[in-house]
């Protein structure tokens, strides 16, 4: 799998179109895109700053994707994560998994996303419309009903 940290905005679907392996054996592709929102906890968010731990971030993402590649039968993957300053509507994270079958693609994609949320050393600080700044406290679980 390919892992990438970017400090510039990226277009996730364009990135996928550019990356997509020209293969005829991947019956299933599962993709998740996380996008910066303009609100959180009832307040208007005007920008998001994404801090990370250089080195440890890449190491954690490698470990997460390596585990997913062993646990599920996947053909390829792409993980892209933004750092730096983001405006609302910009993509934060892209996780894509190519597999022969849809169960593997869905499961591996969601697993990578959950692990990334809980282990990869990134921190979000929100800039609110009224000028205040605040750290995002904790990521919620992704297994809502």
């Amino acid at each position, binding site marked *: 799998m390919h892992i990438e940290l970017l400090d510039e905005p990226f277009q996730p679907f364009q990135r996928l179109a550019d990356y997509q392996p020209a293969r005829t054996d991947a019956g299933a592709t599962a993709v998740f895109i*996380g996008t910066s929102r303009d609100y959180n906890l009832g307040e208007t968010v005007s920008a998001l700053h*994404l*801090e*990370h*731990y250089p*080195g*440890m971030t890449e*190491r954690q993402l490698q470990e997460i994707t390596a585990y997913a590649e062993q646990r599920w039968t996947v053909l390829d993957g792409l993980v892209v*994560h933004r750092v730096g300053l983001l405006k609302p509507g910009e993509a*934060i*994270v892209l996780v894509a998994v190519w597999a022969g079958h849809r169960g593997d693609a869905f499961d591996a994609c969601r697993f990578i*996303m959950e692990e*990334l*949320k*809980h*282990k*990869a*050393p*990134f*921190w*979000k*600080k929100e800039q609110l419309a009224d000028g205040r700044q605040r*750290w*995002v*406290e*904790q*990521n919620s679980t992704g297994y809502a009903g």
Partner: protein
Amino acid sequence: MAIKIIFFARLRELSGHAELTVSLPVPTTPRAVWQHVLPDLALPEPLLVAIDQNYAQLDSPVQDGQEVAFFPPVTGG
């Protein structure tokens, strides 16, 4: 002969340090490192710790030349 200490996010603001290097008798632990650098500041909760960029415990052994990082729960993605 030196241990590199890094603080991230809210803990960088709380500690007043981004990165510093200390000399301590080894083996030591992240807990002892924190108490040495910030004797007046109780260990915050929740707190995550890494040694050489791997998750560790507050009482895991730290050797000379290693990097100890303190940070709050991660919020990427």
